[in-house]
């Protein structure tokens, strides 16, 4: 199948702004699904609310566009009732880690077989540019006209500590790398977290004078480096990219099946 066969073309052109990184993440994700040869009927995508969450409308899989922060809760329900399906959960940084933070850590702790994708543009795009738990200090937002002072979460460290058995990071600029990582994350049995740095030129870019989408992609290129690379060793201020955790651990639905069998034998 071609990549386009996984799209609901009737909804194109999509609603994302020119140069929005979320579109490139959709592009990378479709290629991962296509290269894995997955059947559309075997995939369920659940999403919450946000520009990022609109992604579930554009893919020709089973899809649930739910409520802000709760995409993982819906995904957990779907997975427990139909464990043979592949569950993809793309979320914005606010969706995943502000209002949805609790669902995020507990899904990771259970190690349920779901692929969570954090489309991190470090801002609330849909509602006009409020700062998020991933913004970090020193950025301008509508809710921080004199700059933010809070430290951000490190998604990789948070997901690792919470118990995710696959944890990775890439960027919209590194689109081919994102596809390769997403393929491994989807194939992994357990809770997978893939953070993909995205750009919101409309709010983050404009408020923080980062320029247009091209300039923001240059930042993703220049401020990140592969784990194990010389560049990262020489400059620890760079944001590391790559796969940080990839481990086999008991998966929630399999353990649940065992408990059912155990109960039935009594």
């Amino acid at each position, binding site marked *: 199948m071609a*990549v*386009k066969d996984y*799209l609901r073309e009737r909804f*194109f*052109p*999509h609603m*994302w*702004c*020119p*140069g*929005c*990184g*979320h*579109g*490139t993440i*959709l*592009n*990378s994700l*479709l*290629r991962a699904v296509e290269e894995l040869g997955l059947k559309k009927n075997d995939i369920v995508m659940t999403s919450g609310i946000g520009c990022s969450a609109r992604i579930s409308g554009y893919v020709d899989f089973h899809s649930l566009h739910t409520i802000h922060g709760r995409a993982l809760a819906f995904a957990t329900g779907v997975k427990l009732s139909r464990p043979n399906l592949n569950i993809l959960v793309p979320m914005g940084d606010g969706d995943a880690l502000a209002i949805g933070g609790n669902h995020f850590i507990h899904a990771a702790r259970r190690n349920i077989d779901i692929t969570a994708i954090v489309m991190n543009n470090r801002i609330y795009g849909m509602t006009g540019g409020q700062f998020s738990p991933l913004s970090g200090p020193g950025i301008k937002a509508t809710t921080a006209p004199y700059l933010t002072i809070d430290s951000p979460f490190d998604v990789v460290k948070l997901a690792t500590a919470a118990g995710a058995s696959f944890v990775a990071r890439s960027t*919209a*600029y590194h*689109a*081919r790398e994102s*596809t390769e990582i997403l393929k491994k994350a989807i194939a992994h049995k357990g809770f997978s977290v893939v953070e993909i740095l995205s750009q919101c030129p409309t709010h983050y870019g404009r408020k923080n004078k980062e320029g*247009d*989408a*091209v300039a923001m*992609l240059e930042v993703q290129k220049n401020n990140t480096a592969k784990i194990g690379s010389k560049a990262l060793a020489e400059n620890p201020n760079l944001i590391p990219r790559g796969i940080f955790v990839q481990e086999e651990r008991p998966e929630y639905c399999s353990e649940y099946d065992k408990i059912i069998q155990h109960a039935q034998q009594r």
Partner: protein
Amino acid sequence: MARKLKEHQINRDWCKGCGICVAFCPKQVLELDKHDKVVAVRPEDCICCKLCEIRCPDLAIEIILDEGEDND
């Protein structure tokens, strides 16, 4: 053997003129026209790396290879 280009398939209805493909093409094959839509102005220089295709946020550009090549 180098891959051979048949054409750049550009969906003008979907392209939003963000310029990402233009800026990061290693061979300066692409430009925006006066309507802010992408056009392949130097197709003969294209090395079919597909970087434009995989980075386009609007899925608006596709590299079509010559007959017999794997168009994946």
